[in-house]
Structure formats: structure tokens, C-alpha cells
């Protein structure tokens, strides 16, 4: 075979199957579900962990006085307050850390390089990796809320408050995908530890009012909580699910506006950070290194 023939053969443009974004995301979800389902015992264990957390605060609620909750504008029900806090905090933590772990696993197994060398952009890759994590997180969220309901949490639900809670949950997911993408960028470059997700987890536990209203924090610490989307999400969701308020309430509308602002500002930033980390890792040829 002559040289020209070889070049022509290798340079031949074979039309590839065009696969839409939705099809690709669906493929990611099916793949991740199959992997997840092989660890059924761990799934059971994860749920048990979330449920024992909720049950623990049932007992703590027996010695708590709800004065601080009332001052913060919530109904006097510490159990419901903590059930919502734990359920949604666990939801975003499992989804956000799950994305970083997925990136880490792809690097470890050497499959990330393979996927990204195909006609799948890093944006679709990130979306595909995120969707299943949030689906699994939703599963834990529903289990935790149901457990709360069984042990005596009281939700004040109207059609308006349910719809408002759904809107806030969608904003919660979108805003925390941003955090997940930032964490994924960090893990891509650093390869060990998970500083963004770690800092996010403990800072939100402290300053977003998961187990106590923010009014208990000294003024100079309250502003830290204002930087996290979980703070607004929890406040809005509690007002909807505990107080029965809806988006017509100024406080909830303010929370939704803050979440929207966070998404609009931080989404391009997080995608840019991930792209910088991704390009740098690609240049170093370290996509498959761990």
C-alpha cells in the first residue's frame, strides 16, 4: 500500500452516529443506575444512616425549647425544622459529593479519557454525571421526609405551598449543581482530597441553619451563611412546608430571587473554572491519572 493510500485511508471521514444530548444523558443515567444497583446493601445502609439522623433529632426535640424558631418566623416545631434541614442538607451533600466521587472514579478507572475523546463535550459529560446523583439524592430526600412524617413531623401543606416548595427545590438543585461542578474541577486538577465539597459541607452545616435558626449565630457569623444557596433554600422550604406560606410571601420571594441570582452569576463561573482545569489536565495528558 502506498503512502498516499494509507493517508487517504486514515483521513477518511466516516460519518458518525449523531446522538442528541438527551440520549447521552439517558445513557449516563442507565449506566450509573446499573452500577448503583449492584451495591444494594450499601444503598440500604445509606438510607439507614439518613433515617437514624432524623430519628436522633426526634429524641433531641424532646428537650428543646422552640423559642428561637418562633423568633426566626417558623412554627414552634423543632422536629419538623430539623427533619427539613437534615433531609435537604443530606440531599445536596450526597448529590454534590457524588459528582466529585464520580469524576474521581472515572479517572481511577481510566474511563474519563475514553468518554471525553468521543464526541461528548465536557458540559454533556458533567450533566450526565450529575443527573443520576441528584436522582439518588431525591430518593434519600423522600425517605427522610417520610421518616420525619412517621415520627411526628408536621407539614403545613397547601397547593400554593407545595408548588412553591417544588420551585425552590428546582432552584436548590440548579444552584448546587454549580457547587458540584466547582468541586469536580478541583478534583480533576488536585486528584486528592475534595476541598470544595468538604468546605461546602462543613460551612453549610455550621452557617446555613441546618439544625438551628441563623438568628442564634452572632451577627458577624450570619453573613457567612448568606453566601450559601442552601441558606436561602432551607429558609424558603421551611416557610413553605412548616408555615404553609407560598411564593406570594416576601420572604420566600426573596429567597427564590437570591437563589436565581446565585445561579446566574455562579453557573458561568463554575463552568469556566471546570474548563480551565479540564484544559490544563488535558494539556498535561493527565486525564487518566490519579
Amino acid at each position: 500500500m502506498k503512502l498516499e493510500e494509507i493517508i487517504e485511508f486514515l483521513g477518511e471521514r466516516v460519518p458518525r452516529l449523531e446522538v442528541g444530548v438527551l440520549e447521552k444523558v439517558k445513557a449516563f443515567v442507565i449506566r450509573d443506575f446499573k452500577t448503583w444497583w449492584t451495591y444494594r446493601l450499601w444503598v440500604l445502609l445509606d438510607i439507614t444512616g439518613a433515617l437514624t439522623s432524623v430519628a436522633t433529632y426526634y429524641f433531641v426535640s424532646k428537650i428543646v425549647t422552640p423559642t428561637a424558631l418562633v423568633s426566626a418566623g417558623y412554627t414552634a416545631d423543632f422536629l419538623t425544622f430539623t427533619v427539613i434541614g437534615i433531609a435537604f442538607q443530606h440531599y445536596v451533600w450526597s448529590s454534590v459529593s457524588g459528582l466529585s466521587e464520580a469524576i474521581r472514579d472515572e479517572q481511577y478507572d481510566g474511563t474519563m479519557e475514553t468518554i471525553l475523546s468521543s464526541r461528548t463535550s465536557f458540559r454533556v459529560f458533567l450533566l450526565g454525571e450529575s443527573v443520576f446523583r441528584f436522582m439518588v439524592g431525591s430518593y434519600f430526600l423522600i425517605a427522610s421526609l417520610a421518616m420525619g412524617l412517621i415520627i411526628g413531623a408536621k407539614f403545613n401543606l397547601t397547593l400554593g405551598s407545595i408548588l412553591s416548595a417544588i420551585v425552590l427545590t428546582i432552584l436548590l438543585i440548579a444552584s448546587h449543581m454549580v457547587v458540584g461542578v466547582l468541586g469536580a474541577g478541583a478534583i480533576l486538577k488536585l486528584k486528592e482530597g475534595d476541598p470544595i465539597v468538604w468546605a461546602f459541607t462543613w460551612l453549610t452545616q455550621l452557617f446555613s441553619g441546618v439544625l438551628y435558626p441563623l438568628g442564634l449565630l452572632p451577627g458577624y457569623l450570619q453573613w457567612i451563611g448568606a453566601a450559601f444557596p442552601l441558606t436561602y433554600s432551607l429558609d424558603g422550604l421551611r416557610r413553605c412546608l412548616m408555615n404553609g406560606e407560598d411564593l406570594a410571601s416576601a420572604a420566600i420571594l426573596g429567597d427564590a430571587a437570591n437563589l436565581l441570582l446565585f445561579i446566574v452569576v455562579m453557573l458561568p463561573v463554575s463552568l469556566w473554572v471546570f474548563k480551565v482545569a479540564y484544559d490544563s489536565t488535558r494539556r498535561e495528558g493527565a486525564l487518566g491519572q490519579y
Partner: protein
Amino acid sequence: MKQAELIEILTEDKPRVKLPLRQFYGVVWSSVKMMFAYKSWMIMDLLSTFASVVMYYFVGLQVNPLSLSQTGWGTNYLAFALIGVATSNYLWSCLVRLSHSIQHEIRGGTLETVAVTPVDMLTFFIGQTVRGYLVSLILLVGIFVVGTGGMGVEFQMMPGPLIAALILFILMLISNQALGLIAAGVIMVYKRGDPIAFLVASMNEFLAGVLYPLEMLGAFPLLQAISMMFPYTYALDGMRRALILGASLADANVLTDVLVLFGFSAVLAPIGFAVLNWGYRTIRANGSTSSY
């Protein structure tokens, strides 16, 4: 080189280090070196633990001191919670650390390598647990320093309560580590069961009353009965009596806790070693020291 010389060299009997203490030191030192290789994790763990102390401080602000004192545990919820949080790291370390570590060695193929050396395997396994103890010790000291120095928690620091707390703590380690040895032996053979060990540890943490007074379980006799089956429940009760209420070994409740824990330790420790030994002999016999 002649064939006879070669055979002589290969069959030469080189004296190897067989002293158990030297071997133990070697295993511990390798674990410690690995631990410090992950400095960022260590720092993150430490900071997260400090954050949890601050978090329980704010949770404690919502607790009604009168309600807490009615359960017999004084009026400071943070002091109550700190003892639970600080010791629960040890609980996890005792129950799951060894099985996790052995699985890691099996996956990495290094257990087989160690097994063909003259290292005594019991020494090796016990040495593997030390890393978890060290991490837990760092966290425990950190929690108490932040709690007492930064959050104003006051514990009873007289010799009587301190000695009682120390004895209870040691018995807690022995009895829970014995359960950890059983888990490690079973997991070594069946290559699964790690989730069960985690489940036992999380149920133990929940039912022993790490964050709430055990008196609250009174309305749930089944849960209360299950909680009485865990040695950690007695350790936590006794240590709180000593460090919060100032009780010493002369106190009937503390003495009961010590005796129960001693009973757990005396029964579980030989079983733990036997199961671990059985597990190791089984995987050697069926040649699965490096399969998972």
C-alpha cells in the same frame, strides 16, 4: 558460579527479626507513614470535627436546661454531646477499621506478601488497628480542647472521676475492638459484610444515646432493650456520670457499667481472636488471601 554454590546461597538461612515488639513497631510505623501521606485529609477531618463542636454548641443553645437536668445529666447540653461525639470516633474505629484495612490489603495484594514473611499475623492485625486509634485520639483531644477552651465546657477533673472515665474508656475499646475482630474475621472469609459492620456501628451510635439522654428511649422498650445489648451504651453512661456528674468507681451506677463492660470484654475478646484466627486460617487454606 557452580550449581552447588548457587544452591548453597539460596538455601542460606538468614536470621530474620522475629521479636513481636519489633514487628509491631514496623506495622504501626508503616501505617503512620501512610496516614501522614494524606495530610490534607487529616487537616480536613480535624477542621470538620472542630466545626461539629461549634455546631453542637448552637444546638445546645436551643436545649431547655431544665428538661436536660430532669434526665439527670446536668444543664449543659454541649458537655453531654461532646462526650458522645468524641468517643463515637473510637467506636467506628474499633468496629470497622480493621475489616476495612484487611480488605484494602487483600485488594492491593499486600496481605499475601505479608503472609509469606515471618511476621506474626496477629501482630500484623493488631498493628493495623493502631492507625485508627491515633486518628481518633487526635480528634478526641481536639474536641475536648475546643469544647473546654473555646466553648467554656467544664468537666469534673478530680482524680476519682478521671480514673473511672479512663477505665471505662479502656474497657470500651477492648469490648468494641473484640466486635471489630469478629467482623474482620467474617469479612475476610466471605469478602462481604462490610455494610453489616457499618450498619451495626451506626445503629450502635444511634441507640447508645450519643446526642440525646438514653432516658428518652423509655417510651420505646424494644429500642431500649436493643441499646442495652451494645457495650458502648454502658461506656457512654459511665463516662458521662464520671465527667459530668463527678462520679467515681465508688458510685454504684459507674461500678455496674464497669462490671458489665468487663463482662463484655471477657466474653467477646477470646471470641474475637478466635474468629479472626479462623478467618485468616480459612483464607490461607483456600488460597484467597489476594482475591476479593
